[in-house]
């Protein structure tokens, strides 16, 4: 499994693509594979403030429902509205068109505590 090297990852299987103070958030290839066919995504309202570790979104598949936690603290500035009609995009392209939200993060240095691609890969192999 290959994970984009420029992203950061959480042990809850979210990824973060940080540019300046904007963090694009999605779920990993591994997460979408474990969930199976995704049929519904519940996204937060733009403007919602979240703290790191708080519930950010909910992804529902035919066999499970998964809570997505905020990998960093901040405010939601954009959500991927395309997922409302095509939630399967997450299965097809988890690291690209299947992104969930963009956060304006309050402290970009929070990313330092996240895993890098090889660290995440190692974490998966241990699990």
């Amino acid at each position: 499994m290959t994970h984009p090297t420029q992203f950061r990852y959480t042990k809850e299987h979210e990824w973060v693509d940080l540019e300046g103070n904007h963090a694009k958030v999605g779920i990993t290839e591994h997460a979408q594979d474990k969930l199976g066919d995704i049929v519904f995504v519940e996204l937060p309202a733009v403007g919602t403030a979240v703290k790191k570790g708080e519930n950010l979104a909910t992804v529902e598949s035919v066999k499970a429902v998964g809570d997505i936690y905020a990998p960093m603290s901040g405010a939601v500035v954009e959500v991927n509205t395309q997922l409302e009609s095509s939630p399967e995009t997450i299965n097809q392209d988890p690291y690209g068109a299947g992104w969930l939200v963009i956060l304006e993060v309050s402290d970009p240095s929070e990313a330092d505590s996240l895993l890098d691609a090889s660290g995440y890969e190692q974490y998966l192999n241990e699990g």
Partner: protein
Amino acid sequence: MRYIANTGADRRAMLAAIGLSSLEELFDDIPQEVKDRFQPLELPVQSEMEVARILKELASLNSCQQSSISFLGGGVYDHYIPSVVSHITSRSEFYTAYTPYQPELSQGTLTTMFEFQTLICELTGMEVANASIYDGASALAEGVLMAKRIVGKGRVAAAQSLFPHYRRVLDTYCWAAGIKVIEIPYTKAGTCDLTALPQDLSSLVIQTPNAFGVIEELKGVKERLADALLIVVTNPISLGILAPPGQFGADIVIGEGQPLGITASFGGPFLGLFATRERYLRQMPGRLTAQTVDAEGKIGYTMAIQTREQHIRRERATSNICTNSQLCALAATVYLASLGADGLHELATLNLEKAHYLAQRITALPGYRLAFEAPFFNEFAVRVPIDPQAIRARLKEERILLDDPRFLSALGAPNTLRFAVTEKRTKDELDRLVELLEVI
């Protein structure tokens, strides 16, 4: 359920396992002054036959709806239940199974659930109905919680003319959920007064027919609500003759299913009806059955959108305080299916006509007049010239049952009696009631 008594040896073994020497030690937590009030039952030793006779004699002293002429209403009504209802519900295939946890094995149960949901949708004019919840009052509270989840504002406006027990359940749920309940008064005609509707609401709750029996005007209400949801509480039998709330833009329709083939019992078990719009489906509480096709293309039924529910979503479920009243829902399904649309219309018409006949006769008596002038369905409130409790007590001696007038005086309608008239009341019974009122 099988009853197998445990022996003295069983009890000693169980007590030893938890380190106690006597059964009494189990009750050590009960304060001594309470224990001092305990009295031995000192039942006489008698044969089964003798005991059965004594109990039968005691039971005959009960006053119940079957042995009385009931004008009781306020959410529970004395409708005739066709024998086909208990014939179907008492079949062991339905009677012994609870809400299915291996649902696809119970295709028969799932089929009836799907039919129930379909019937409730047709009746209410809504797009989605769940497989039922506890009762009308808890269904209402669930509807208000759901509206809060959708709209996000912590205020609900509730008509004062709601059944008082619905209001109490609503207050309990809202207190726990931190939702403020704002009461909306009623007009002199007995209808909800919407002239000064508060802002920033998650929902408005309006009941029709309301606690006074009065039919509310639903037209134009939804349009005044901004983004708040319109929750309508209704009596399913009234929908045999009244336009369904769905036609007036209701977002959630709530009802008590008891009139649909379920006995009054001791106030339950009842049947909460809950219908809404498809766009709110994922916020709906309760179970849902859906139709699908199997691998061979044959129609089958399955539980659907279970991710809303507590066995999957745990504390984030749409509700952790509901269940499907499946046997009661089955009774309602059989009841509605046996009546059909025309039968339900005929039944509702009978209720309406008989109630109006009685109202006409009562209000012809000196001093008796309708408490409210707005149209009513099968129950109505009458302002009476003497103490309503005295009237009620006198009629009870004649085995004629009326609701306690305190329910209405608490709503600001003193000296008022409410009469519910179903298809079961004969002309003789109605005339007899009027004759008695005339001489009280």
